[in-house]
């Protein structure tokens, strides 16, 4: 079995040599020499820098939107959760599948990393992962997993919050939201957040005040999460990048959990399925307004 690095480099070199590809996105070593960072290879030579290991945390599908209007094709190294993100973008007509080459990586799980601080601890998303194999790919590297180890405990932490009293929940979130510095890194890292102008940046109507205050922050976080309802593919980049450690995945996965229960829908699994807010069933029982 050839190493993942070599398989990715070989394919990337081949794509870039063909002339049909503008760029191949993958990972290279970060400046700490241990962790990884995104690499955009434009030439076959640059493809030699590709690596893949359990520190390749970034969801590169986030960058695909930058290539939306490009005439040439692009290649992308995608973990299973990243491939769900690609499905999301295809479903929302943001990318053309025919101009995309997906090097799917069967994932062994990603470790929690900070710059210069790789750990041996699996990330939260991997502990709650329900799909360890790429849902779409043109080339598969790595070995398919036969079962999902984590699906059962996917929402234990969400259920723990649900189990608290309303006052406790309110206190919990206000503590976190009041810490928010509104850098919008959560949005910037998100595959689903590709609006030309985010509602939070809009001046007219002014949905969210400029003032960084708990009430405004709450509106921001509520709507940010809700705009991802039925769309979040649980890559958890938002939480990873948050400089003040707001547990954003607890918001996203609450909506994912309820979306699964109410609409039997999980984002990104199949690009051809209509998202839950764009359809309905007349007789369905949803617990609200039945």
């Amino acid at each position, binding site marked *: 079995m050839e190493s993942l690095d070599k398989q990715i480099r070989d394919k990337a070199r081949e794509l870039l040599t063909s002339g049909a590809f503008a760029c191949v996105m993958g990972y290279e070593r970060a400046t700490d020499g241990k962790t990884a960072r995104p690499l955009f290879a434009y030439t076959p030579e640059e493809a030699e820098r590709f690596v893949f290991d359990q520190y390749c945390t970034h969801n590169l599908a986030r960058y695909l939107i930058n290539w939306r*209007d490009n005439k040439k094709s692009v290649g992308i190294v995608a973990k299973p959760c990243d491939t769900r993100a690609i499905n999301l973008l295809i479903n*929302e007509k943001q990318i053309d599948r025919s101009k995309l080459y997906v090097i799917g990586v069967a994932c062994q799980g990603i470790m929690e990393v900070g710059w210069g601080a790789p750990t041996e601890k699996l990330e939260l998303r991997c502990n709650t992962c329900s799909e360890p194999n790429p849902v779409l790919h043109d080339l598969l590297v790595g070995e398919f997993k036969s079962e999902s180890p984590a699906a059962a405990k996917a929402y234990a932490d969400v259920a723990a919050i649900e189990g608290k009293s309303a006052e406790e929940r309110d206190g919990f979130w206000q503590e976190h939201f009041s810490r928010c510095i509104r850098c919008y890194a959560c949005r910037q890292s998100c595959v689903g957040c590709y609006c030309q102008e985010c509602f939070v940046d809009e001046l007219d*109507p002014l949905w969210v005040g400029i003032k960084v205050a708990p009430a405004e922050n709450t509106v921001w976080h509520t709507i940010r999460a809700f705009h991802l309802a039925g769309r979040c593919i649980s890559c958890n980049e938002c939480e990873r990048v948050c400089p003040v450690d707001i547990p954003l995945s607890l918001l996203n996965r609450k909506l994912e959990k309820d979306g699964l229960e109410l609409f039997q829908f999980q984002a990104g699994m199949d690009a051809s399925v209509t998202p839950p807010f*764009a359809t309905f069933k007349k007789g369905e029982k949803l617990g609200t307004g039945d």
Partner: protein
Amino acid sequence: MARIGVFVCHCGTNIAGVVSIPAVLEAAKKMPGVVVAADDKYSCSDPGQAHIRAVIEQNKLNRVVIGSCSPRMHEFTFRKVMVKAGLNPYFLEVANIREQVSWVHSNDKEKATAKAIDHVMIAVAKVARDEALFPKRVPLTKRALVIGAGITGIQAALDIASAGHPVTLVEREASIGGHMAQLDKTFPTLDCSACILTPKMVEVAQHPNITLLTYSEVRQVSGFVGNFDVEIVKKARKVDSKKCTGCGVCWLKCPEKVPAEFNEGLGTREAIYVPFPQAVPLVPRVDLENCRYIKYLEYMPGKTPGKRPMQCRICEKLCPVQALDWEQQDEVVKEKFGAIVVATGYKTFDPSVCGEYGGGKLPDVISGLQLERMFNSSGPTGGEVLRPSDGTHPKTVVLVSCVGSRDEQRGRPYCSKICCMYTAKQTILLKEHDPEVQCYVFYIDIRTGGKDYEEFARRAQEEYGALYLRGRISRIYEDGKQLVVLGEDSLMGRPVEIRADMVVLATGVEANEGAAELAQTMKLSHDVYDFLTEAHPKLKPVETQTDGILVAGACVGPKDIPECVAQGGAAAAKVSALFSQEMLTSDPMVASVDNARCIGCLLCVQVCPYKAIDTQVLRNGRTVAVVNESLCRACGLCPAVCRPKAVNLRGFTNQQLLAEVNALWQ
């Protein structure tokens, strides 16, 4: 700069008796943008309206809030006042302080006043964000398309044409007339179907405003009310209808015989034929499947092994006017229409799926429509009721109702509405044809809603001696020359066995073939049985969700002739009303898309109930949504699902609604 005037109506004591008008005026004067606040005894009265106009002019107001009764009452009245005062009518908001305040909170005047002030504040906040709106006027094509030329379509076409508008009537079959042409007599009057239908058919053919396109199908529909672009395929008859005189020599001499569809498979027709003698137009068509010359032509290029078909062409040789045109091809007609009436009718349930009734294998188990053809003197049996197996006259006839109706297991849970009545009619006609006949009817319920219907059904039993047995048939099988009908009489609670000479199945009504496809072509919705959906089951029975497209007759659901005629007329009336306008005025309160914000996810396209959102490609190559203002009904689903807030709904914009929310409890 907004200069807002607030007018508070006393409504006599209706409002002023509960709400403190001075307090509301005082509060209103402090609201942002308000330059004047005034009151009226009755704002809607002539003096009230004149006062509002005067205050608007004196204070150079450009926006107005009126605190009064519900906007559902007088919004329109006050809009007209705005116009008279020289303002755009959409710079007006009505604060509901009567129905939703004074009339419901009379027990606490203080709280009622506080709520009235808040409602005025909400309206002031909204009016500041109002935009001038201008209705668009678009020309319309005063030409109607009627699809389907059964009795419904015929009626609709005649009524529209009589109102003076050109109509194109499209019929899929070679002749107009539809199912009604197949019937012998009609219930409950027993008048001859052909006698009442054919004059209308002739009238259609001769009406100067009606263009008849038979043997034609609608292929594509685009556009919107007043301006539909339609593509119609005129299928090749291989007969030049301009030359043909309908003399009939061709079909009399055609050697090929095929089962006659018009006669429900009883008897035969030729390969060049008219479906029935009174066909309109009386122009035969060549059946491309069965014509010997056509088969020969198809054989020649490939020269596939096998017997070479004969070249025939007898019809061509005999035709006195050389009307046969073997070169004739399908022709596509593209035309503009202002309105479309869909009257595509129904088909009857196919009983061959029902094993217990012999599954279509027993020759003497026939359908109601087959019996109709036998009754008919121009039918396959010359008006004699004969057993298909041996041509003898049946003496014991069992009629079975609800075949393919009220049957959950076969996916037809609905009542077909007409079968009870036509079964009763057929028992009478059977008896009239042969007084020795004894009829038995198996039924679930006898449904006879309609003028003179119940009396008619009773006559079948009481005067004509039809025996009605309540219960289902469990099995029909052949025993010698007779049929054994096993069933249950559920009123007596015992099994029944009848030895019958013939069984007639009252087959139910189904959506016509291709109904769902046609609905998709026109972006109409249909139910799970493929019946088209009307805009409102009670109040808009012939309208659809698409303006300018009307539905009538059995394509919406099972209907009898009087209903179909009424619906055809109703649809025609709607078309005439539409065509009475010189220009169409579109409501300016519709959705619009900001191209710069649109991300092209097209969620709006998916949720729009009116298919009013299309896509367009911008110069930079991006695909974005675009609203067809003529189709938009302003429900506001699209702005609510639009994450980047690229879609907005005029009159209820994000800016307006957010201003209202922000004004709550100020």
